[in-house]
């Protein structure tokens, strides 16, 4: 299994390179912009695939974690602390280079958090929020869990929309690029397009490596057992509550990383990123990719998100994802990549007749 995992990641990276060369050959380098954005949304889907597909816990609130990551990074790298320069905490942080001076919108100088510091805060904040939400919410199952996470997402959306300091309905703008490594930063316009593309998909590859090694270990076995029957899993000595919580937190942090990077890449973020339809979209992608298929989810996310960002679905954008979700549930509940045409017709017929529970 070990060999095949690295082989798969290598294959995945080869596909990433092929797509870049293809875009170059087709003289459509601007495709890379949407592909880069799609990569960051794919991080959310990959984490959600672990939570939904393996551990069997639904979340209709993952857009909120994405937004928390993005807003934390966006806010901390744009907030101006010059006025509080004399305060002891601000002074210490400035000396530690956690706070760095940079040019603000009007050419003056502003003192804000370094993107790395902001990123660290974004991750820790998301971790804490996911933990606090997860402890009570993960005691719920099925529809109740879906509703509770939906409620959480709605609350985050409302808070973002109502917060003047977070730009209310406009969101945050002028977020500086994220200097990831010397010479490579996330964001920074057209010239950095190719580099950004590779950074984004490299991050996805890294996430895939971690997630697939997780699902192929005893942790993955435990998660699938929890998915099957929680009591039976507990009877195996699996700490069900802890595993569910850790998976929830991990998937939330992955979403926040995606949110943080995309905010730097786009130089801004708006409250729509926390919207319920976004959360539904992630769930739809995981369902299409196949519950319990990490690779299927990533492929589906890359394609659907790219098409959506390119505007191919037009005003029907949200409707497409809704329709896709319905179609998958009817015809191929195991996901499109495991599509079996004959079985699908039978399942769909049974379901339409209302006797498809056993399927």
């Amino acid at each position, binding site marked *: 299994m070990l060999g095949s995992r690295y082989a798969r990641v290598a294959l995945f990276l080869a596909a990433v390179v092929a797509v870049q060369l293809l875009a170059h050959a087709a003289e459509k380098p601007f495709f890379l912009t949407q592909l880069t954005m799609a990569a960051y949304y794919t991080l959310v889907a990959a984490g959600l695939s672990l939570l939904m597909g393996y551990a069997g816990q639904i979340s209709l609130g993952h857009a909120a974690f994405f937004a928390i990551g993005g807003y934390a990074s966006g806010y901390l790298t744009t907030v101006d602390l010059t006025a509080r320069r004399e305060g002891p905490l601000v002074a210490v942080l400035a000396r530690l280079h956690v706070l760095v001076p940079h040019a603000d919108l009007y050419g003056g100088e502003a003192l804000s958090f370094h993107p790395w510091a902001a990123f660290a805060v974004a991750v820790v904040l998301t971790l804490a929020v996911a933990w606090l939400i997860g402890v009570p919410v993960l005691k719920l199952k099925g529809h109740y869990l879906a509703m509770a996470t939906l409620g959480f997402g709605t609350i985050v959306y409302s808070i973002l929309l109502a917060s003047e300091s977070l730009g209310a309905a406009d969101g945050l703008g002028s977020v500086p690029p994220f200097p990831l490594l010397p010479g490579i930063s996330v964001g920074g316009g057209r010239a950095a397009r190719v580099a950004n593309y590779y950074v984004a998909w490299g991050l996805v590859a890294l996430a895939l490596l971690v997630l697939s090694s997780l699902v192929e270990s*005893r942790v993955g*076995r*435990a998660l*699938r*057992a929890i998915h*099957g*029957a929680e*009591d*039976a*899993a*507990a*009877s*195996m*000595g*699996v*700490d*069900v509550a802890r595993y569910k919580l850790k998976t929830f937190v991990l998937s939330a942090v992955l979403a926040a990383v995606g949110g943080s990077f995309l905010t730097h890449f786009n130089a801004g973020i708006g409250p729509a990123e926390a919207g319920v339809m976004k959360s539904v979209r992630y769930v739809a992608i995981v369902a299409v990719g196949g519950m319990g298929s990490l690779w299927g989810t990533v492929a589906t996310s890359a394609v659907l998100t790219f098409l959506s960002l390119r505007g191919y679905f037009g005003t029907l954008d949200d409707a497409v994802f809704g329709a896709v979700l319905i179609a998958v549930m009817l015809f191929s509940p195991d996901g499109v990549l495991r599509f079996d045409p004959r079985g699908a017709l039978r399942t769909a017929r049974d379901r339409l007749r209302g006797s498809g529970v056993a399927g």
Partner: protein
Amino acid sequence: MLRLRNVDAGYGALTVLRRVSLHVNPGEIVTIVGANGAGKTTLLRTVAGLVRARGGELVFAGAAVTRLRTERIVALGCSLVPEGRQVFAPMEVRENLLLGAHVQYARGRKDEVARDLERVYGLFPVLAQRARQLAGTLSGGEQQMLAIGRALMARPKLVMLDEPSMGLAPLVVKDIFGIVKRISEEGTTVLLVEQNARSALQIATRGYVLETGRIVLQGTAEELLSNRDVQRAYLGSDLDAENRVAT
């Protein structure tokens, strides 16, 4: 090994177990017989920590386990083979068995897992043949063997079996009870819940009779097998025939 003192348990407004006291000594096979709905499954689920005891106390291997969570109790060495087997159908037979060894990894005894796997395959050769098959495709008897093997992978001191004969053909039931006896001989203590009282008492050292949540009778297996009330209620003796002999 295991001691219950005045244990009450139930679900919601329903009280199922009323002041149940019993004990299991190391090396014994203790069976609990009783009719449908007497509370046998609830009793095992309470010991396993899947149902909370509302009163009384449970002691396992010298430790108070009344308030412990299931996974802690398993880690202490008390494993349940649940009613209806509950194998993980979409997972391979081998994966099911490795899941059983979950606590072994947590104990840092990972190196023993491979040997335990061989031991289980030795006990149940059919599982070795079907190692890569999905557990959901096994027959009922094979699933029961898998459920028992899975429990053994945790190296339990006490294994609790809930209705292992349920839904199985008589010949298969005989095999299963043979295996239970063998597990006991190899040093694992057994608590066996059965509706099939005769088979259970034939391999047991002692037994308890559970009626509507209370222990109404206890004794050695021979005593219970020869007890007339037990014979009438649980062993299917013909009452009319007895009366004819008596008069």
